[in-house]
């Protein structure tokens, strides 16, 4: 009976897509691609559906696309030289969600509060010129990971200005190895972006950077993404940060299943991540926009009717009052996860539960046994004394 319940439970959790089988292919179908071309295709087969993930850097904008189909569907990429010409799924996806970083903004934060505000001077650096190079990759059935870097400007003051991007997928639920230790699941991919050695504009005294993100979902274009911030009791994995921010697609918000971004409002101003180097990551409001021209997104969503595709953008800005702006450390790193389904919720660790049970259990056991002991002793004592007087 019990075994049956357990089996049903395991079966159900499998059916709800807890774990998936992942197969990763770099530049599938391209025979002449080198490390200067990076398009990773990851097929994640679950119990009832398949998530196709495309991590693309070929058309300059770092892009992650999720497409959900039934099992046994395939994805095919055709190429012209080292550029993808078409990305075609064997069946129409039941749902799709995507994000891309299209611009980097430098802004003069005269209020010194880390918000990117239209009233202050700002410059947008489009990422559509950047060439991305593959630095390292792991492509196995246990993990799919790529680390790419793009050089923003080669020869300003001799140090290259670099944007690093790392994407990581594992087929089970776990906490990321690096701070802020976000949860990744088989349904979500960890994206870590760092801005290293960027040269700030001479005319700005208070330069900070912000990422401009595009959010795309196969929801009606009249809907909107939803920003939710919740607090967890548990900052065990991200010391000192209790908030979790989720950007939910309309279908997730309304029906409980859909695309999302999840992250902690924290960024790091040094390579050595820790409480002392942590700073704030802030999200702006959403606004509506269009798919960028010549992008992989445009290619992938070419067949979809404009009215059925929600395209919005937002800023994520970094820094907090009094931190000395970007130039203080010349470094900013930020992580988020992009996923499908329902965002994972963190729970108390085994250690926490153990301390509470030992801490509460021992005194109670001690008190009970102590009281029993004292009562017994007194009882015996009284008894023996009574006997003694009787004999007397």
């Amino acid at each position, binding site marked *: 009976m019990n075994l049956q319940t357990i089996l049903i439970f395991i079966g159900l959790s499998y059916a709800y897509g807890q774990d998936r089988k992942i197969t990763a292919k770099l530049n599938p179908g391209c025979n002449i691609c080198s490390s200067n071309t990076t398009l990773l295709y990851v097929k994640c087969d679950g119990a009832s559906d398949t998530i196709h993930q495309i991590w693309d850097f070929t058309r300059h904008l770092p892009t992650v696309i999720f497409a959900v189909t039934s099992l046994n569907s395939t994805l095919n990429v055709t190429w012209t030289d080292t550029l993808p010409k078409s990305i075609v799924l064997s069946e129409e996806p039941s749902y799709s969600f995507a994000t891309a970083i299209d611009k980097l903004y430098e802004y003069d934060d005269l209020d010194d509060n880390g918000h990117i505000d239209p009233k202050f001077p700002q410059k947008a650096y489009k990422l559509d010129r950047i060439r991305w190079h593959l630095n390292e990759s792991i492509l196995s059935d246990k993990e799919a990971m790529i680390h790419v870097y793009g050089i923003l400007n080669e020869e300003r003051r001799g140090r290259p200005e670099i944007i690093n991007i790392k994407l990581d997928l594992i087929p089970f639920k776990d906490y990321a190895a690096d701070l802020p230790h976000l949860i990744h699941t088989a349904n979500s991919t960890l994206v870590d972006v760092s801005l290293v050695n960027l040269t700030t504009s001479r005319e700005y005294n208070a330069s900070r950077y912000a990422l401009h993100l595009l959010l795309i979902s196969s929801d009606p274009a009249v809907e909107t993404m939803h920003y939710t911030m919740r607090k967890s009791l*548990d900052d*065990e994995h991200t*010391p*000192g*940060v*209790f908030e979790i921010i989720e950007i939910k697609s309309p279908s997730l918000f309304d029906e409980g299943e859909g695309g999302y971004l999840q992250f902690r409002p924290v960024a790091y101003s040094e390579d050595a991540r820790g409480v002392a180097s942590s700073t704030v990551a802030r999200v702006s409001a959403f606004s509506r926009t269009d798919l960028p021209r010549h992008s992989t997104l445009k290619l992938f969503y070419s067949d979809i009717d404009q009215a059925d595709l929600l395209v919005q953008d937002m800023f994520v800005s970094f820094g907090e009052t009094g931190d000395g702006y970007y130039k203080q450390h010349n470094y900013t790193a930020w992580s988020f996860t992009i996923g499908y389904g329902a965002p994972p919720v963190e729970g108390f660790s085994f250690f926490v539960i153990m301390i509470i049970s030992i*801490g*509460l259990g021992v005194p109670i056991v001690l008190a009970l046994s102590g009281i029993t002991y004292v009562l017994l002793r007194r009882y015996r004592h009284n008894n023996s004394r009574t006997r003694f007087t009787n004999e007397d």
Partner: protein
Amino acid sequence: MENPESSGIMGVTQEAPTSWCHPSNRVHRFIALILMCFLCFGSYFCYDTPGALADNFKDDSHLNTSQFALLYSIYSWPNVILCFIGGYLVDRYFGIRLGTIIYMTIVFVGAVVFALGVYINAYWLMILGRFIFGIGGESLQVAVNSYVVLWFNGKELNMVFGLQLSFSRFGSTVNFWVMEPIYRWVANYYGGYEKLGVALFIASMTCLGSLICGLILGWMDHRAERILGRQEEQAKAEPFHLIDVLHFKPVFWLVSVICVAYYLAIFPFIALGKLFFERKFDFIPQDANTVNSMVYLFSAALSPFFGILIDKTGRNVMWVILSIITTIGSHFLMAFTFVNPYVGVVSLGISYSLLASGLWPLVAMIVQENQLGTAFGICQAVQNLGLATVIILAGVIVDKYGYLMLEMFFLGCLFVSLIAAVLIYILDSANKGVLNLSPSMREALKKTTVRTEETANLLEHADSSDQDEADVGGGASPRDGASPRDSAQLQSDRIRSRYIAQLLPTTNIPDRP
């Protein structure tokens, strides 16, 4: 009390005892009392300046929590030793006046060096400053208590002790209230770590103020000595005998476990509390400081009432267990809920002062009177040692595992002290001890029981304090004669001045049965 001959010889203008300038006049002594209250204000104020500016230490000086915690830890290190010899040095070598001024100067120098370290952003200098500050801080309290014993006696003494200590704690509270506005004001003129340094320089002025009070009081005391012909008694024997340790009962060691474990869940919490309130409960810095100050404020305000409560009801162990349980409740509330932290912190403050009122008299009940000095010294040393090591650990926990784990750690400490308290209760009832009896039962026991080895010294001790009260009630001054009773009283006051006051941040319970 007065000694006209000696003042005549000294050639001091004789003032009538009715004049407010006369040292035995109420007004005059009231002025002395106010000065005494301010003596420790500066050191208590500056002790918690890092806590009140915790987020600024992170942002301006870029300290991580471990480095920040070391600022508190380093304060406790010298006191592991100094709590034994600080008072002894005053008695034997410095004298009260010089001793107070020396310790106060050390405190002031420490505060200034610390501020300088922050101003030039040199971490080692900050640590050095806090170390110097620690050398003076605790010993200063001993010296000030000696002043209190010298100027006040009998029933007055308890009240003055209580008042002086409450006022000192109030220094910490005020620190939490004003440092944030001061910092923001300074920020108009300075930037980066310099503004933090300047804010701390301003804070160190409270120590200068206390030093000035110390100088005035020193002058008043010097004058009083001449006018009253008072002689400062030399302590005859060093009241600390390490060999006594061997004779302490297991119950004493359990009490000292509570002394360490319980306080670990209070002081490090206050030190690291500001950022916790800001981050978990979204408080602005000023509000976070106000919440944090509530522990001190409530314990300062409630201690006298809890003192009376425990006097009337006895049953100290039950009160101790109760206050540990409510403390656990408060920490639970802050760890596992988002309930407004005022609730948790206020109940923490109440529990903390209830515990202090219940716990410390236990030491006096367990240990023989002539070993009291050693007993309190040990309690204080282990407490300082505990704080010194654990605050560092607490900082590392915050950096690596976050505030939830820190709360778990505090809960762990409280569970240890709860176990110790339950063990005390069991040991005591198994041996038919007196620790948990009501006052009337203690009285009855004293009259009827054949004195066993277990309770003899305790009841003797109870006898003697009753007699103390009688003496005081009779209006006799303990300082005008050389009767053995008086010298015993004096010795007891001395011990009290050296240890009890430090242990009880705000309670005024001396050696009560």
